[in-house]
């Protein structure tokens, strides 16, 4: 496991050195997803950029979450789901049977719609991932990971005095940032967020959005959102889904100012959704 993570750090450094900002991190090719007989995703291909925020928008039930879950193979945990197609990440097809989904998920973190901290202490919430992946050699190293993860998630100042308090005792917004910190702690390359703000109030939402903007400098972030404003605020790229198909994908600015497809236009202007 260690080897993998170090490999990643290596790649990340290389990229930084080469200043490859506009680089494809995840390349999805001809993805079909079925729930039993029912098809939920129809032949979607898209390239997701590194060090950028990509937003998935579209009406409810159009397959945004389903597609997002393909990227860290969370669909494997749904018994009825089957995924076809290739997803290339760092030169390897993650759907290849030789790739262990458990390893993949340590490199592709996920934040869910409803904050779901473990019913353990704040410290243990963050430390759990590094522990099972053997990322820290000792207690002090683990402490460092916990602190840096909480700092990156902008939560350190608020919780540094009560790391032993249960994670569930935090407010909803803090819990969601805790979940982000937990995802960061295993040093992933990609962070997937499925409507991370839909259960939060506007102020907590604003904080998460700020955080996403900061994290963009280090990670490839994919965010599913219901809110057009949010997509416009935080993302550089936007993908519009409709009925399991990718309708339009491009720079956020262009999608919002000059959509090519009439359905995108209708959705953005609020004519359906």
């Amino acid at each position, binding site marked *: 496991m260690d080897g993998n993570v170090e490999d990643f750090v290596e790649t990340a450094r290389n990229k930084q050195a080469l200043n490859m900002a506009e680089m494809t991190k995840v390349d999805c090719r001809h993805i079909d997803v079925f729930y039993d007989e029912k098809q939920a995703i129809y032949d979607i291909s898209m390239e997701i950029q590194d060090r950028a925020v990509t937003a998935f928008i579209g009406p409810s039930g159009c397959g945004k979450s389903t597609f997002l879950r393909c990227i*860290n193979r969370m669909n494997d945990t749904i018994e009825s789901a089957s995924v076809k197609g290739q997803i290339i990440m760092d030169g390897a097809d993650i759907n290849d049977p030789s790739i262990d989904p458990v390893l993949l998920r340590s490199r592709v973190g996920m934040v869910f719609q409803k904050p779901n901290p*473990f019913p353990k202490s704040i410290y243990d919430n963050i430390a759990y991932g590094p522990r099972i992946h053997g990322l820290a050699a000792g207690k002090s190293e683990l402490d460092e990971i916990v602190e840096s993860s909480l700092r990156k998630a902008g939560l350190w100042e608020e919780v540094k005095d009560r790391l032993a308090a249960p994670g569930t005792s935090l407010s909803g917004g803090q819990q969601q940032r805790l979940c982000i910190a937990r995802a960061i702690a295993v040093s992933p390359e990609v962070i997937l967020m499925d409507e991370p703000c839909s259960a939060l109030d506007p102020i907590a939402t604003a904080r998460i959005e700020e955080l996403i903007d900061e994290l963009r400098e280090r990670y490839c972030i994919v965010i599913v959102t219901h809110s057009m404003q949010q997509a416009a605020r935080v993302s550089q790229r936007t993908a519009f889904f409709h009925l399991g198909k990718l309708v339009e994908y491009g720079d956020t600015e262009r999608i919002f100012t000059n959509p090519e497809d009439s359905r995108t236009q209708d959705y953005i202007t609020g004519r359906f959704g």
Partner: protein
Amino acid sequence: MNSPAPNPETKGTFVTDAALKRLKKRHAAETRFKFYGQFAIAIAVLALIALLVSIISQASSAFQRNMLVFDITLNAEDVAPNGTDDPDAIARNVSGFNLLLQDSLRDQFLPEDADASETRQLFGLFTRLAVLPVAKKTAAHVDMVGTQQTVSVALADDIDLYLKGGVTERKSIDLGQVASARGAIGDGIYVSLAPGTDTSALAEAIGGFQEQSLDDSAPTTLIGIGNTWYSVTGFSSNEIALAYLAGARVAPDPSQGIRALVLAQAEANRTVSDRQIAWTMLLKDEGRIRKAFNSTLFTNADSTYPELAGTAAAIVGSLLTMLVTALLAIPVGIFAAVYLEEFAPKNRMTDLIEVNINNLAAVPSIVFGLLGAAVFINFFGMPRSVPLVGGLVLGLLVLPTVIIASRAALKSVPPSIRTAALGVGASKTQSVFHHVLPLAAPGILTGSIIGMARALGETAPLLLIGMVAFVAEVPDGPTDESTVLPVLIYKWSTGAERAWEPQTAAAIIVLLVFLVLMNLIAIILRRRFERRW
């Protein structure tokens, strides 16, 4: 909850008559439902109280026992056969101790020429084996041999019951003083009471008991004067004719106090004879009958004599059986539940298994007993009547309960915890064992302990594997012959002697205490686990 009914005078336009009517109906329905609920709870509580009161009132007499006290020299030739000082030989010398105590009673109460029936009645005040604790104590302190000691033995169950108010109804009546007496102990005594003595209470008692009598037999009247007891042979207008029964062989003197004891039943209809009652009264007057906590109930194994029977063997047997049951049912049940709930693919096969587990939980327990007898005893050749087999049978019996409870507990863990663990790269097994199982633990524990409590009270399957055997020794291990508490209760409840009744109730209380303890443990453990969120 009930909003006040709107005042029709001031009702606004939106409160129509129809709406008011509906509202009234709704309130009525609510009140009715509340009443049903309270009524149901009241019935449950009353039933519980009735059960507890009846058991406790019956058992209370079993927790106290009347002991007969002797101040006696433990002569070496009686208690230590052939001058031995081997503790084992002394402990085994039950008949030596028995003879010593019997002789002491005979010297006190019977003349040299007493007939066999009288002697048997006297010796019937306690059973042979009642001296066992005395023998054991002497064996433990050999230097007691040859010295004067105060020892006490349990009175026979009938006598004990009599002293506790059982055997027969009775009335004690003070008759004032003897005015005059004539006759001799050998041929009959006639006493007259002091003039003006009110004998109406006596007549009333005799008349009342006579009326109650089912077979028209006359009630018995015993008369005590000083340290002598007589039975009444007849009443004449101014005299009472008495026949000597027990105690000092001296004719009554005028101005001695006289009292009557009226017994509802004739001697032939009771298990305790007139003489035994007279001796008991005398011993009581001497202060030689003492009430003591019946520790026998907890230290002795089963016995054919209720006054010597205890629950020790059954308690140990139950504990050993529970141990085997827990070792089988809890780990297997939890792992089966975890597999079915977390890992098994959801298909026909698992549906079938699920249905079968649910059905298994409803199979009558006696069927498990048959299974145990057929498989463990006949096929695997395990011994009969042992906690190992009992525990295995009960383990199979509670396995479905544990599985169902554990699955329910696992199901109640929110799926978001699983996805959270998987999301940070935990494997399926890690997510289950690190997160899901600890959260489900309180529920699993509660289910398991409830299952164990059910096993603790189970009788039928154990009867079939021979755990109903008479066990006079506390078992040493799970492969020793043994019985368990509920079977012991069943056996005691079928005992012929009246004294088994309180004994049974006492054993029930012991069982209930165990059940309460188990539930307490469940609650404590649950609190413990829940504090870790």
